[in-house]
C-alpha cells in the first residue's frame, strides 16, 4: 500500500536555488503562485530498430495511469523508418503478476517487476490528414493487427533491456528504460483571501438568518379610569417561535418592576 508520493524539486528564484518537496495536500508556494502535484506515472523509453539494426525511433512516452497500482495505458506511433507505418497500444505494469483469470495486472506501483505489453498494428496511422491527433489514442480503423488480440501472434512482452522482434520481419522493439513523470499545475489566484472572507460572511449570514428569531412586539397603554393604566403586550413571530411567549412575559415583568420603582419615587 502506497502511503505517499513526493516530488522533490529545485526552485530557482533570484538565482537562489531551493530544494523542496511537493505532494498532494502540500503544494509549493513560489513567488505568489502555487504549484500542485496532480498526478504521476511511468514513461517507458522505447527504441525501435529496422531489420538492419539501425535505430529509427527513440522516445520516452508517458503512459497514463489507470488504477492505484499504476497499471498504465499508452500508445506508440512509428510513422517513419520502417517498411510500413507501425502503431502500438499497450499496458505498462510496474509490478506485473498474473491474476487468477489469467490476465496480467499490476499489484504495486513501484518498479518491482516492470513489464510492457504491446499490441502491434500496421497500416495508416492517419497522421497525414492534417487534423491534429491525440498522442494517447490510436485509431486502428485503417490498420491491421499483427500481434496481440485478433491475431495468431501473442502481444509483445517487453522487460527493461530486452529487444523483441516485430512480427513479419519489420524490425525490433526494445524497452531501454523506464522513467517517471509527474504532472504539475501552477495556479495564480489572488482572490483566495477574499474567497475566505466571503465564505465566512456567508456562513455567518446563514447562521444569523436561521438562528436569530424575528419578532415584533406591540405595547399599548390605555387609561383605565380608576383602575389605573392598562398595559397590553402583543408579540408576533415570523414562523414558529416557542420562546415568544416567555420573552414577552419577561418584557412585561421588566416594565412592571421599573414602573413600580418609578411610582415609589414619585411622591418625593
Amino acid at each position, binding site marked *: 500500500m502506497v502511503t505517499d508520493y513526493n516530488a522533490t524539486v529545485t526552485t530557482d528564484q533570484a538565482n537562489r536555488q531551493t530544494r523542496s518537496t511537493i505532494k498532494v495536500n502540500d503544494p509549493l508556494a513560489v513567488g505568489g503562485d502555487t504549484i500542485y502535484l496532480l498526478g504521476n506515472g511511468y514513461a517507458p523509453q522505447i527504441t525501435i530498430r529496422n531489420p538492419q539494426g539501425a535505430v529509427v525511433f527513440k522516445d520516452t512516452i508517458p503512459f497514463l495511469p489507470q488504477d*492505484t497500482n499504476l497499471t498504465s495505458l499508452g500508445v506508440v506511433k512509428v510513422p517513419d523508418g520502417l517498411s510500413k507505418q507501425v502503431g502500438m497500444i499497450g499496458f505498462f505494469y510496474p509490478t506485473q503478476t498474473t491474476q487468477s483469470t489469467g490476465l496480467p495486472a499490476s499489484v504495486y506501483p513501484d518498479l518491482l517487476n516492470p513489464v510492457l505489453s504491446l499490441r502491434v498494428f500496421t497500416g495508416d496511422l492517419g497522421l497525414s490528414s492534417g487534423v491534429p491527433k491525440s498522442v494517447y489514442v490510436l485509431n486502428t480503423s485503417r490498420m491491421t493487427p499483427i500481434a496481440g488480440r485478433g491475431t495468431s501472434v501473442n502481444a509483445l512482452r517487453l522487460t527493461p533491456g530486452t529487444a523483441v522482434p516485430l512480427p513479419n520481419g519489420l524490425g525490433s522493439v526494445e524497452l531501454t528504460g523506464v522513467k517517471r513523470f509527474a504532472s504539475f499545475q501552477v495556479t495564480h489566484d489572488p482572490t483566495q483571501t477574499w474567497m475566505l472572507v466571503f465564505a465566512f460572511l456567508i456562513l455567518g449570514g446563514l447562521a444569523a438568518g436561521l438562528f436569530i428569531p424575528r419578532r415584533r412586539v406591540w405595547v399599548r397603554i390605555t387609561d383605565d379610569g380608576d383602575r389605573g393604566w392598562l398595559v397590553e403586550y*402583543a408579540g408576533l413571530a415570523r*414562523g414558529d417561535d416557542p420562546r*415568544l411567549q416567555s420573552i*414577552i412575559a419577561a418584557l*412585561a415583568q421588566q416594565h412592571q418592576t421599573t414602573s413600580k420603582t418609578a411610582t415609589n419615587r414619585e411622591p418625593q
Partner: protein
Amino acid sequence: MSLSPSTASIVLIYSAMAIYAIALVAYTLDLARRAAPLRATAAARNSPTSRTSGVDDPAGPSSATTVVMVAAESQALTVRESSSSRAGRIALALTVLAWLIHLAGVVLRGVAAHRVPWANMYEFSITSTVIIVGIFLLMQIWLNIRYLGTFVVGLMLVLLGVGSVGFYVDVTPLPPALQSAWLVIHVLVAMTATAFFALSFAVSALQIVQGRRVGQARRWGNTLRAQLTRLLKTVPDAETLDTMAYRIIIVGFMLWTFTLMAGAIWANRAWGRYWGWDVKEVWTFIIWVIYAAYIHAKATRGWNGTRAAWLAIVGFAAVMFNFGVVNVFFKGLHSYSGL
C-alpha cells in the same frame, strides 16, 4: 487473552449492536404499551397553557395589568405521554450502555489505525452512527423523545449492520489524498450533519404518520385504528414535530454548508481547484439544495407540514444515496470505500 486494538474494536462494535438490538425490543415494547387500552396513558399531559403574567393591584394609580397576547401560537416541545414506562426506561438505559461500548469500539479503531477513525466507509459508518445515537441521547436531556427510539435505534442498527458487514476493511494507512488536517474537520462535520439529518428524518417520518393518522387509520380495522390512535396520542402532534424537525434540520444545514465549504477549501489545497464537478461534490451540493428547499418551503405559506416533511425525507434519502451508492458504484475522487 490479549486482543489487538482492531480486533477488540470489532468485538465491541458487535457487542454494542447486540445491546442496541435489545434496546430496540424495549423501545418497541414501550410503543406497544402506549397502544394498550388498559393502564391508560392519560397521565402527565402537560399541554402548554397560555401564560398570563401580571399582578392585579387596583389600589395604586400606576399599577399595570399585564396581558400577554401571543399571535403566533407556540407549542412547547414537551411531550404529552406517560413518562414512566418501564420498558422505555430500560430501553434508554440499554441505549446509553450500548453507546458507551460503541464509542469505545470507535476509539479503539482510531487507536489501531493511529489516526481518526473515519477514513473509509466502514469507519465512517461506525463513527457516524455513534454520533447519531450521541445526539439522540443528548437531546433526551432537554426533551423526552424516547418515542423516537424505535425509529432512531432501528435506523442506526441498519446503518451499523450494513457498515460492519458490507463495508468492513482492515486498518490501512491513509492514501495520499486524505493525509491532511482537513480530514479531521471536513469529515467530522459531515458526519455530525448526517446525524442531525438522520434524526430529522425520524421526526419527519413520525410527523407524516401523525398528520395522516385519521385518514389512514380509517382504512384499517377498528382495533388497529384504536391502537394506533392511542399510540399517536402519546407522542407530540404533527405541528410540534414539524417545529422539532425544522430545528434539527437548520442545525444540520449549517453543518452541511460548512462541510461543503471546508470540502472546497480542502479540494483547492489537494487538487488545485475548489470545485471539479466530482460525483461526490455534486451529490453533496444536491443534498444542500434539497435542505435549502426545505427551509425555503417552511418560510413559504402553504408548504408547511406534510409537504415540507416529505422534502426532509427526500433530503435524507439523498444523504443515504450519497453515502451508500455514490461511494461504492460511482468512480470519482472521493472513492475511499477501500472495497
